[in-house]
Structures are given as structure tokens and as C-alpha cells.
């Protein structure tokens, strides 16, 4: 249950039997395809989810950066992001395990909507915990979850955002663990979650590997993915880890600054791999944004989906061993990346994915001749944020907004 020094199962004793049960189910169903679990999963991801997603040559970016740029189009997956790979895998696994109920937490709402969608598809009762603040500012995602028949439980405690929602979901799970599966949304949490979520997401890199060889005739020189918790990152990288010649770049949210304000308990970034230190959070030993005493600081990014103070333990390990290069770009670069892809390629990317595109703009000279960038999701959900943040700034890639103002 560990990746070098990282990983583990740092959870309350009450949850340990459930983790052992999950580990057992993971090994049987996911690793050994017992009862045809994997076959059903793959078929549903094809028919319900829309896999495989395309690998698209980006003509204008290729010209702009004078190298071959390919985009992995996870934005085309059902729900608008790679999230469904994991949500559907876990809900299906819960069903195979005989669980009667699904819970999950969500911050901006992407994991919650993917889980609600998967639960509706598989006819599993589903409850999503979401901070009241997030409920209020992410209405459309709340609506989507409700439309899919999920209960949305607003969490009123503290700042009423992701952290409180995680705590509340943990409480629910600790109370109902015998009949409930907790669908963790990224490659984080206690073993076997980081490994299992990675395996559900690994289809991204597996498809890229086949597609790039078919389309470009060889493996890429460089693979770039954004990293928050790290599920799209690990999903993209996993198939390439053994290919030493393929460089892997995890692009984190540099936010507005890489400095931590320890007195305020704030990091104006989410660059955990780039700047974090080892510690234990939400069940695993990994790199964290924390103060010297061990208190977790509040992270920040213009992209809500990257806004997390931890990161998957396997990524910490791959960074520590030098296999993955941690990098980051700031909010401005991500916003420019958003506008640039929208305008040049006709793809409105998620703000999360826009970080990978920002990196491409800033550091393409570091990259090889054949580059794959994972577009982990679509940006419709981010339009309001992008407009707001764009108006505050002078961004070279942004369209003028006069028509919006009338």
C-alpha cells in the first residue's frame, strides 16, 4: 500500500476493515477481472462515457511552438472531464461489493457531478457533501447533481468549502461504513484509493500510447498534464512511466505566488509537488502545503479543481525519484492558456487543463519535438470565473469583452 515513502493508510481504526474489504475487492475485481468486472467497466466507459476520447493534432499550436503538439481530449468524456473514469469505476465496484449507498464530497462540483452521473447510471443511491459556500457559488453543478437524483448535503461548518465537505463525508463514512462506499475523487486518500483511482484513470495514457504511435508513428518526447490531487496526471502518466525516454511534466497551480503566508495559514498557490513538504493528510503520507507546526494551510488557485493542499502519494514518489518533473504556472498564465486554446483551436478547456497549456506557452523550448498535452476537461463550467478574472487583468490572449457589457 505504498509508493516508496509515500502512501499508507492513516485513517481512524473504524475505517480499516472497510479499507481491507476494498483492497480485497480491488484486487479481485479490478486487478483480476473477477466476474468480468473490468469488461463491464470498459464497455460502460465506451457506451456511456464515450471512450476512447480522441488524440488530436493541434495544428495551430504546433505551428506556434514549432513542434508537434497533440491534445488528449478528455474534455469530450461524458460530464465534461476525466472524472467519470474514476467515478464510474468506483460506483461499479461498490455495486460488485454489494454496497447499498454511495457518498462523495465535492468542492467545485466536478467530482460530485461525475459521481452523481455514475450513480444514476448504475441505479445507486448517492449523497454528495458540499460546503454551503460552494453550493452557493457552484449552483449549476448542484442542479446537475440534483437532476441526476443525488442528494446534495450542504455542509455549514467552518469556511463551508471542500475541507469541511471532506471532513463531513469522512464522518458519514465512519458512521455507515458497512453499507456505504466513499467515492474518493482523486489519487489521494488511504490505500487502495491512490492505486485504484490511478488504475481507473490509466486508460487516458493507454489510449494516448496507442493513438500517438498510430498517428505520429512513435512515442512522444514529452507528456504534459496539470496536477491538483493528480488523478488526470497519474491517469495520463501511468502508461509512460516505464518509458524512460518519455519526459513527464506535472503542471501545478502557481496561483498568485509560491510563498506561503504561515501566519494567515494561506498558500496563494496549490503547487504541492513543487513546494510542499512530506506529511500525512486525508489518509496518506505525501507532499503537503503545511506550516512548520504541521497545520495544513489553505491553498489557492484560480482553478477550483486544482485547489488542494495535498497531492497523490504516487506523484510525490515519482517526483522524489526524478521520474516526473514538477512545474507550475501562475493564474495569469493559466488564464492566457484558456483563451489561447479557445481562440486558436476552438476548444474551451477547463481552467485546470489551462495550466498545462500555460506551461506549453512558457516552456515549450524545454519540451521535445513530439508533445502530448492532456486536456483534462472542458471549460464551460469556468466561464464566469474566467470573465471575472480576465476583467481584473491585462491578458495578452484574452478577447475584448465589450459585447458582454452592454
Amino acid at each position, binding site marked *: 500500500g505504498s509508493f516508496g515513502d509515500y502512501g499508507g493508510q492513516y*485513517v481512524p481504526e*473504524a475505517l480499516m476493515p472497510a479499507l481491507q474489504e476494498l483492497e480485497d475487492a480491488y484486487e479481485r475485481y479490478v486487478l483480476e477481472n473477477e466476474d468480468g468486472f473490468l469488461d463491464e467497466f470498459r464497455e460502460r466507459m465506451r457506451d456511456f462515457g464515450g471512450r476512447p476520447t480522441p488524440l488530436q493534432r493541434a495544428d495551430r499550436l504546433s505551428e506556434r511552438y514549432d513542434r508537434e503538439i497533440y491534445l488528449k481530449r478528455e474534455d469530450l468524456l461524458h460530464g465534461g472531464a476525466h472524472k467519470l473514469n474514476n467515478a464510474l469505476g468506483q460506483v461499479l465496484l461498490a455495486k460488485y461489493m454489494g454496497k447499498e449507498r454511495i457518498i462523495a464530497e465535492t468542492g467545485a462540483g466536478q467530482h460530485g457531478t461525475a459521481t452523481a452521473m455514475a450513480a444514476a447510471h448504475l441505479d445507486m443511491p448517492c449523497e454528495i457533501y458540499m460546503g454551503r459556500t460552494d453550493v452557493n457559488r457552484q449552483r449549476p453543478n448542484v442542479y446537475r447533481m440534483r437532476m441526476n437524483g443525488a442528494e446534495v448535503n450542504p455542509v455549514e461548518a467552518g469556511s463551508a468549502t471542500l475541507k469541511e465537505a471532506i471532513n463531513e463525508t469522512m464522518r458519514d463514512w465512519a*458512521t455507515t461504513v458497512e453499507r456505504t462506499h466513499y467515492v474518493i475523487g482523486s489519487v489521494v486518500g488511504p490505500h487502495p484509493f491512490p492505486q485504484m483511482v490511478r488504475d481507473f484513470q490509466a486508460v487516458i495514457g493507454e489510449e494516448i500510447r496507442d493513438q500517438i504511435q498510430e498517428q505520429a508513428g512513435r512515442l512522444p518526447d514529452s507528456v504534459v498534464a496539470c496536477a491538483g490531487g493528480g488523478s488526470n496526471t497519474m491517469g495520463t502518466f501511468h502508461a509512460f512511466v516505464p518509458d524512460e525516454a518519455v519526459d513527464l511534466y506535472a503542471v501545478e497551480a502557481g496561483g498568485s505566488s509560491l510563498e506561503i503566508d504561515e501566519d494567515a495559514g494561506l498558500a496563494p498557490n496549490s503547487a504541492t509537488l513543487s513546494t510542499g513538504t512530506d506529511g*500525512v493528510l486525508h489518509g496518506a503520507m505525501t507532499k503537503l502545503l503545511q506550516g512548520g507546526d*504541521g497545520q495544513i494551510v489553505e491553498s489557492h488557485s484560480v482553478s477550483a479543481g486544482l485547489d488542494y493542499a495535498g497531492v497523490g502519494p504516487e506523484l510525490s514518489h515519482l517526483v522524489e525519484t526524478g521520474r516526473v518533473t514538477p512545474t507550475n504556472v501562475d493564474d495569469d498564465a493559466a488564464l492566457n492558456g484558456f483563451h489561447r486554446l479557445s481562440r486558436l483551436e476552438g476548444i474551451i478547456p477547463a481552467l485546470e487543463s489551462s495550466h498545462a497549456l500555460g506551461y506549453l506557452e512558457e516552456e515549450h523550448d524545454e519540451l521535445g519535438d513530439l508533445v502530448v498535452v492532456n486536456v483534462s476537461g472542458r471549460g464551460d463550467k469556468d466561464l464566469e470565473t474566467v470573465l471575472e478574472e480576465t476583467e481584473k487583468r491585462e491578458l495578452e490572449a484574452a478577447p475584448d469583452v465589450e459585447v458582454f457589457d452592454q
Partner: protein
Amino acid sequence: MTDEARSENDAAYDSDVEAAIRENHPALVTYITAGDPSLEDTKAYVEALDRGGSDLIELGLPFSEPIAEGQTIQAAINRALAAGTTPDGFFELVEDLETEAPLLVMTYYNMILQYGSEADVRPFVERAAEAGLSGIIVPDLPAEESDPLREACDDNGLDLVFIIAPTTEGERLDSIMSQVSGFAYVQARLGTTGARANVSGATHDSLARLSEYDVPKAVGFGVSKGEHATEIVEAGADGVIVGSALIDIISSSETPGDAVDALEAKAAELKRGARRGADSLTVDPEERPEPEQP
């Protein structure tokens, strides 16, 4: 607890924590969060709990992500953090305290790892021992991950208390019970900490399941009244653990002085309740192992 008292107890039991439970049977274990609302207040509250009859006192060192706590303790932790509570301040408080009852620190694993600025548990454990703490409870550290901390505790003469959940069964239960140090913290029900109206049926099941193990058992999660203590001791517990009910007193008292009085009274109520439970067992005609009386 004084060093003198500690060395006395060492003879009869593995640790002063175990001694505090066994010798004060049925024992009262109390918990409050250090620094809620200030370390100075905490000092007065701990002394009140000690006077009220606590046989063991758990002091919470606040961590920003208390995933095992209910809303009551989470709120106390937030207040303590907002008041600027740090590990160093915590240890200074412990050094200042004069109590009959041994003191345990309850905190999350990351706080232990980070103390002394390396991802190493030893600086924390050494400082805890130096400050006079008798043991450590870590709600997010299951037995499987506890080797480094246990070794450090052993080397420094501290108990590492394990939690036994309603879901802890079979081989894992055997394994954990064989490693018990101090006492077994029996979680009364699934879920998180927090005062409840009734004692859970799971408590009875758990104590029945644990009756074969000859280790001291103290039951927590949801205990708030003297009657709960009575019922739990009747069900076979060696002690009861109370936390959220005390936090409620602290957060609802108008002045720190009111809180001091109410905490002492609550501890006394709970201790009386526990004793009633022990007494009812003593007069019970059924055969049971006679609980030790101080």
C-alpha cells in the same frame, strides 16, 4: 501527576496510564482541547476536571484537519487554532499543570511528524515525555501504521493508546489487543466523537466481544451523562471517556469561572455514575471478575 506517584505505580502495572485505570476502577477519562479558548483557560479547566474526579485526562493538541471528530470537537479545535495554539505552547501548558491524573496528548499524526521540522516522530515523543505526558492517542493512526511511533513511545516510556472500533474484529482485534498499551480505547459506536442522548447497542456488543481480553477497557464516543457512565460500566467497561460533553460546557459557559465550576461538577457526576455501575455489578449475584477497588 508527580514523578514520585508515577514510580510508585510502575511496580504494579506496565504504565501509570494502566495504573490510573486499574487502581481507580471504574475510571473516568476526560478530554478537552488545549487552547480552547486559550491555554490559560485550559489550565484551569484541566485542574477542575482533575478535582472533579478524572482519573486520566486527554489533552487535545489541535490539528487543522480533524477527520475523526464530530462537529463539537472540530469547533473547539478551530477556536484553539484561531487562538494561536502551537505544539510548543501545548507542551509548556503540560509542564505547568499539576494534576493527580496522568495526562495524555490526543492529536493527529501529522502534528507528531512535523514537530521538530523533520518528518520524524521522535522529537515530538521526546518532548512529550520531557513535558510529563504519560501517553499519546492518535485517531488517524491505525495499528498497521504505528510501528515508528510505538517504538519511539516505548523508548521514552509513553503509552500509545489504540482505539478499538465496532468494526474491529477477528485477527485484527487479536493483533491490536495484544499490543494494547495503557488501555484499550473502545469506540462506543460507528461515527465520530460527539455527545449523544443514549448509549449505543454497539457498546454492549463491543464490550462482550472484548470481555475475553484481559486489558483495561475505557469506552468513549457519545458519553455525556452520569447514567451513560453507569450503563457502560455495568456492561463491563473499566472506564468511561467523556469529551464533547465537556467541550459543550466550555463553549456555552458565560465566564471561564462558570466553566471551571461546571466542568468539576460534570466530572463528579460522571465519576459517580461510573461508580454506580460498578456498585450494581458488585451486588449482582451473577459471577463476574471482581473489579479492583482503590
